């Protein structure tokens, strides 16, 4: 506890909160076990949730470039943790201890005249790079035309509306697809012109570029700064045009867009060439604007039914794959389709573009197969029932929302580099990123998530995009860290801002080391159980992508039990004696809900839904992630102001209104009595105005949540006995079920018809296992 920061901190909770607000970082452990062995005994790995572009209205970017450590293998950026010799104009790198000269511009430096990056409050700082020409943002719409008439109409309107939201100099392009894929030329006057591709034929990038007439000399160096678009005005001009030039044209074009004209016979699905359309979109941008900020926005209303990437055949009698089919290895097209989309996703990531998927259909649309496109490129994934819903319309609109500076909340082509002090290594990352395969001295052999590198590419990100980053303590037990030593980590995020500037955000943090044997209490007290729950959940979900569900659950359970064994206070073989300290007390409950969450349970969810939930879970920040794991339940009654209540069936009472937020759904549930009152129309009677207010209160609160969230949650307004009440009933802890209702003999609450174990049973088992010496 020697850290100077700590002394000023009242509690760890405040410390954690301050750190999150300033740096967008939450660590599972805020005091680090100082040896490898001890660290592994902590069960929950040393890891953090990093929100690289966390909105910082109070942090104006500096208009110069960062100063780098001169050691070629280090190149850490000058930060407040560096020791500075003002007289000699030297600074020591806190990662490799290299002593560096300040650059000439820093000659005036002194104790009283410090650059921002040396001030402690600038542990996170953003630099604006001055070099390189700016290239406009690119938005390439890829639009499914196999939609119902009103769906297509709604989509067309949304797209037309979006034109007015785009930055005026942004380039837009349009690809439509159905049985064929059409790339629309936007520059021509008179006859509207499009290039048509067969939806069944897989084309290489070269073929696509040849066929579109985009062939030009290969772009040198993948990592190179994008050349000015003026270099190839001809190729870019036909398919990608500045919005301000062609918005009228494009509005007309969208207006004239017809449903796919090819007849669909009875009992067939329309032939939908999503795979080829996406491939052409990727190829088009690859050929024209590599390494430039670009969004490919795929709008689809059904599963791909032909060509590469097809997910299901066009026979309606053959349903799209379910989890059951996948378990039985009966999903004919899944592997091949997944491979196709993975190939596209990887290419897109290499080009620094991102793919959004807006899938609106009542049935599945193949998100399972296509998920990698959004996951690997940092694109959005939106799932709805129809384009003609406010869910889609508002979500889509929100993509183009602006921040306090009037800039779009989107950034492109980011590279995240993590540097660690020598006691630590980087084990991996989980989030909307791909590995850049940079093997440095700080890369761990053991992988957690996407590992084997200390640099990742995040092609599209927004202020809430959050990565889980996992570390490994490598310091050997017999080489203790000197007293007062601190471990440091630097996160360097280079990205293209929506204003098209290149920027670098640098966050440097440090934490105290502690000897786990002598200072276990310190470590325990510095445990961030919320962050830990989310980080563990990310690991679990990451595993669930490749492993069988039950295995993941067993692994989670084992980790939980081990954690309890390590940090619980108990007498051996005496479950009743088991206690957890405050910093761990909520953790088992998170795990209980996580086990039941759609991220790990596929029962009752289609593969698409699972993919959708997991996609969002892997990119939201801590608060949202926690809501996803354990939904929030508010209760409204005449007895007092709205209050959060236990997510438990006992909270479902007849005279209450409940508001549940699961992140994906907002459920308003009227208790039995309330529902009857409403049915009787009391709310319309002047003498029962307070009832009217009671009914209104959760609606207003729900609206507030709806306004802030991306993607728009599904909004469910139901009551006791309503069919949609299942959304609530499936989430609450089944403390009362048909099995124990009478045994408990309580009169309140609602029984849940389930055989799932309740939290109480779960905890009982946990205690039993934790105190057991058998484990």
């Amino acid at each position, binding site marked *: 506890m020697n850290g100077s920061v700590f002394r000023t901190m009242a509690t760890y909770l405040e410390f954690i909160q301050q750190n999150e607000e300033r740096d967008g970082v939450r660590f599972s452990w805020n005091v680090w076990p100082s040896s490898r062995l001890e660290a592994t005994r902590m069960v929950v790995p040393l890891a953090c949730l990093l929100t690289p572009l966390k909105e910082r209205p109070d942090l104006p970017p500096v208009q110069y470039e960062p100063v780098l450590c001169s050691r070629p293998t280090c190149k850490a950026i000058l930060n407040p943790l560096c020791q500075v010799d003002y007289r000699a104009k030297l600074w020591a790198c806190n990662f490799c201890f290299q002593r560096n000269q300040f650059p000439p511009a820093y000659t005036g430096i002194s104790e009283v005249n410090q650059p921002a990056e040396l001030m402690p409050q600038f542990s996170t700082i953003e630099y604006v790079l001055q070099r390189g020409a700016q290239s406009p943002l690119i938005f390439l719409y890829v639009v499914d035309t196999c939609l119902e008439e009103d769906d297509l109409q709604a989509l067309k309107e949304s797209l037309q509306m979006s034109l007015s939201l785009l930055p005026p100099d942004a380039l837009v392009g349009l690809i439509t697809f159905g049985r*064929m894929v*059409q790339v629309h030329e936007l520059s021509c006057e*008179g*006859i*509207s*012109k*499009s*290039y*048509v*591709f*067969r939806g069944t*034929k897989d*084309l290489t990038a070269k073929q696509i570029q*040849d*066929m*579109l*007439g985009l062939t030009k000399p290969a772009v040198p160096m993948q990592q190179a700064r994008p050349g000015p678009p003026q270099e190839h005005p001809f190729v870019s001009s036909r398919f990608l045009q500045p919005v301000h030039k062609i918005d009228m044209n494009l509005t007309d074009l969208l207006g004239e867009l017809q449903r796919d*004209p*090819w*007849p669909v016979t009875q009992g067939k699905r329309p032939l939908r060439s999503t795979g080829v359309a996406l491939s052409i979109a990727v190829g088009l941008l690859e050929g024209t604007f590599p390494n430039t900020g670009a969004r490919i926005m795929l709008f689809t209303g059904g599963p791909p039914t032909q060509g590469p990437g097809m997910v299901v055949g066009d026979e309606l009698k053959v349903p799209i794959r379910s989890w059951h089919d996948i378990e039985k290895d009966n999903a004919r097209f899944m592997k091949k389709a997944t491979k196709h989309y993975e190939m596209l996703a990887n290419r897109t990531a290499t080009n620094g573009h991102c793919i959004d998927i807006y899938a609106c259909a009542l049935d599945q649309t193949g998100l399972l197969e296509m998920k990698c496109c959004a996951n690997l490129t940092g694109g959005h994934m939106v799932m709805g029932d129809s384009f003609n819903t406010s869910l889609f319309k508002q979500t889509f609109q929100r993509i183009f929302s602006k921040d306090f500076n009037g800039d779009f909340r989107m950034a492109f082509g980011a590279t995240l580099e993590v540097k660690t002090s020598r006691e630590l290594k980087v084990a991996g990352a989980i989030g909307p990123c791909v590995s850049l395969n940079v093997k440095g001295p700080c890369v761990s052999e053991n992988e957690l998530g996407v590992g084997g590198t200390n640099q990742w590419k995040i092609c599209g990100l927004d202020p809430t995009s959050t990565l889980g980053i996992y570390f490994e303590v490598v310091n050997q037990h017999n080489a203790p860290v000197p007293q007062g030593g601190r471990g440091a980590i630097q996160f360097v995020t280079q990205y293209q801002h929506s204003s098209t500037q290149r920027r670098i955000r640098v966050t440097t943090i440090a934490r105290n080391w502690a000897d786990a044997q002598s200072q276990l209490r310190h470590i325990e007290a510095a445990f961030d159980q919320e962050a830990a729950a989310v980080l563990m959940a990310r690991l679990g979900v990451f595993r669930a992508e490749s492993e069988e569900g039950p295995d993941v659950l067993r692994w989670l359970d084992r980790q939980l039990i081990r954690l309890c064994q390590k940090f619980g206070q108990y007498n051996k073989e005496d479950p009743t004696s088991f206690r957890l300290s405050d910093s761990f007390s909520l953790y088992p409950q998170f795990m209980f809900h996580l086990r039941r969450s759609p991220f790990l349970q596929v029962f009752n969810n289609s593969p698409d839904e699972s993919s959708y939930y997991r996609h969002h879970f892997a990119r939201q920040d801590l608060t949202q992630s926690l809501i996803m794991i354990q939904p929030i339940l508010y209760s409204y009654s005449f007895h007092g102001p709205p209050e959060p209540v236990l997510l438990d069936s006992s909270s479902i009472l007849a005279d209450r209104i409940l508001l549940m937020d699961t992140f994906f759904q907002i459920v308003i549930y009227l208790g039995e009595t309330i529902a009857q009152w409403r049915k009787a129309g009391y709310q319309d009677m002047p003498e029962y105005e307070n009832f009217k207010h009671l009914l209104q209160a959760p609606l207003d609160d729900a609206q507030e949540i709806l306004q802030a969230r991306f993607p728009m949650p599904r909004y469910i307004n139901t009551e006791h006995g309503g069919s949609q009440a299942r959304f609530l009933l499936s989430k609450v802890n089944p403390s009362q079920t048909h099995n124990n209702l009478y045994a408990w003999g309580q009169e309140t609450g609602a029984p849940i018809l389930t055989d799932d174990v309740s939290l109480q049973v779960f905890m009982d088992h946990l205690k039993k296992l934790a105190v057991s010496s058998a484990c």
Partner: protein
Amino acid sequence: MWAPGMMKPAGPLGAAAPGGMLPQGPSPPGPHQFGQSGAHAQGHPPQRFTGPPPVNSAAPVNSAAPSYAPYSPSAQSSYPSPASTSSVTQLGNQFNAMHINSYGSGMAAPVQGPPGPPSAPSFQGPSRPPQPSIMQPGSQVLPPPPTALNGPGASPLPPSTHRQDGLPGPQYQPPPLPGQTLGPGYSPQQAANYGLQMAGGQLAYPGGFPGGPAQMAGPPQLQKKLDPDSIPSPIQVIENDRATRGGQIYATNTRGQVPPLVTTDCVIQDQGNASPRYIRCTTYCFPCTSDMAKQAQIPLAAIIKPFATIPSNETPLYLVNHGENGPVRCNRCKAYMCPFMQFIEGGRRYQCGFCNCVNDVPPFYFQHLDHIGRRLDHYEKPELSLGSYEYVATLDYCRKNKPPNPPAFIFMIDVSYSNIKNGLVKLICEELKTVLEKLPKEEQEETSAIRVGFITYNKVLHFFNVKSNLAQPQMMVVTDVGEVFVPLLDGFLVNYQESQSVIHNLLDQIPEMFADSNENETVFAPVIQAGMEALKAADCAGKLFIFHSSLPTAEAPGKLRNRDDKKLINTDKEKILFQPQTNVYDSLAKDCVAHGCCVTLFLFPSQYVDVASLGLVPQLTGGTLYKYNNFQMHMDSQQFLNDLRNDIEKKIGFDAIMRVRTSTGFRATDFFGGIFMNNTTDVEMAAIDCDKAVTVEFKHDDKLGEDSGALIQCAVLYTTIGGQRRLRIHNLSLNCSSQLADLYKSCETDALINFFAKSAFKAVLHQPLKVIREILVNQTAHMLACYRKNCASPSAASQLILPDSMKVLPVYMNCLLKNCVLLSRPEISTDERAYQRQLVMTMGVADSQLFFYPQLLPIHTLDVKSTTLPAAIRCSESRLSEEGIFLLANGLNMFLWLGVSSPPELVQGIFNVPSFAHVNTDMTLLPEVGNPYSQTLRMIMSIIQQKRPYSMKLTIVKQREQPEMVFRQFLVEDKGLYGGSSYVDFLCCVHKEICQLLN
């Protein structure tokens, strides 16, 4: 029958083809010698034709007419030499064994038969002629005719030579006695058994006087040159037929009657046999046995033009509709009800005339018979009383048992740089606006049911959406030429009337849209593929109009390279030039036919474009190939536009299958034309229009009865332009005879030439041209020799005796042999040869007649008051005069030849310029001058142009100016500049062959 052997090079024939035809033995055989000795022939030419003046040398020179007089008595008897009687069978055997006539079924025989084609020794056979010693030298020493069909290899004689080597006064030998050779019913006109008599003694021909060998010793003196006027004149034959039968009514009520010549105008009345406009035969009397057929070597063939245009004064085809019952057909052979069905048992049953099967009359069709066993409704039902009629087809006759959709026309325009530059694209687009108003329609309909679509292309394809509700057409570019597909369904094929404004908008924009294009490369196969796929997607048949101008060199299926190689000419590899470069087009054509996609190609080449490859699909899909070399807007647009208009408006049937059924004893074995065959009987045609003919060859498979005759029924199942499925039936009954004379007198030379041309042009793909020419010469000689041997009255062996019906066969045959397809000429490009080859393959008899023997009209003798055409003259330079103006037409080209001393008033009248020297030859249209000369000449030209499938390009030729060289190639009776013998020379050559055969 060229095909079977030739298509398989490994087969006996293929192996034997070049060499097998040629003797291995010591004595060079006729054809061989014929071909090879041309080079040294010039040293000896006179010796052949030395001899005293002909007996009838006094015959009028200028007019052959008197010698045609049927009854002109003549003391001259043309008995064959003593050897001939025994050699008839010998000759026949020889044919069998040697297969000079490769049309025979026994093409493989050279391997098994006596080794060697006709050589004198082998002719001697068992019954040695009395003067073997004479014959021997005759065949050995006698050189071939001076200007043999040697091609350029044989150095031609100076032009005057042929006048000196005198066939000594040949003349037309009247028949000895009418009764002697004439069968009953032999009409006087036909009886003229004209022979070309040669004074035997002086000629060094076998059977000549002893002492021949002595003559061989040195060049004999030229005693008399052969008078061209004394040899059979095509003009005379045409004029005679016109005089006797022109303007009359020709009723088709008699079996086996020989119709008037194609050049004769008359009114045809269907009385139970198909009009000759639909079917013409090489002979209207078939030999009873195959032996006899082999002996005569006369091809048995019919040239069928099922959709021939019928003049307005003749009755159009009746349409028979049996409702759901569909046509009545024989249960066994499936022949359709026709006048040849014999009703029996009171009308309850009928016997099929083709297979003799007795069928029950379907109840709905029952009718009582009258006292002569004819149905009471005989004259009410077209199918009982007419040779040609149509049935409404039931759903059984439709694809997938669904009524067809109306066909579609797709216009596909090459918009590469050169076409834009020379204004062609603009011209086409402008023209389409008017021509689309004239889409063909069913007579009763107000508007055409045909839908139209548009594609432009260079190395990629642009489809256009011209849906009527669009404000602007939409363009869809398909760049995947490797695997073309149709990018849109709705809006591609539209009704012209409904989408008129969008289409006009499009046609206005196309030239501008590509105005800045500098794309030079084009594709071709993908274009056809695209059109075919579009029709397939729309589930209809149709026609593609492709306007193309360059060798398709862009990377795509069907990509071609320039492989034109003059070095191949006159080698065994010359045939490669006629074969398509890749098999892509062949399989494409197959697909097109399978989907009823007809391809019509307008080519505008400025250099080699490989017509042999590009033209394959149009040919096999029943389309037409039009070619405009070095297209120049001001010169050639009129010709092109006329062709385009004509082609769009043409009567046409789509998605057709033709089946030719015959009565027992013979059957159709080979088919030539714009057709595709997947099996041996079904002739599939993506489309067939009014100008396309299919030539069908027949072979015996049993004896034919004189009583029953030979019956032919040609049924064409097709889709009309309105989208109706119909059956068009043509029936024809022919005689059968066991007398060779009957056979010979029923022949039609025009049809024979049509057949020979098609079979030879088909063989061009597989055989060296030299072999083909030899075969043609040999067969000609055989046909005539057989006649001489079996039918002609005895005469001197030296006499050339031609059957009346084949009088002009030699001259026509010579024209065929001289055609640039069979005989290359340096000024004719490979493309042009491939083009002409293709055209001939689908020609009807009238077109092939004109094509091979052009019409040459003197204009200076024009009677401006008369509307009749002036009498044609023979195609020979000697018929022209410096003071004259002549018009020559062959169906593709028209020449107006101006003699240096053309009458100024005529020049003034036609060209509106003061003199010959002022005439500007740089025009393709005559100026419209308001005087009788101009008007009459232009009227004549339009009459000649009428009914011809191709718009003829007019060239003005001034005597003694360079372009005259081209013109002179069309003077087909003269010796060709680059090889190709004159008529006289050829006649002599044939005569020599005949004489050899006879001995």
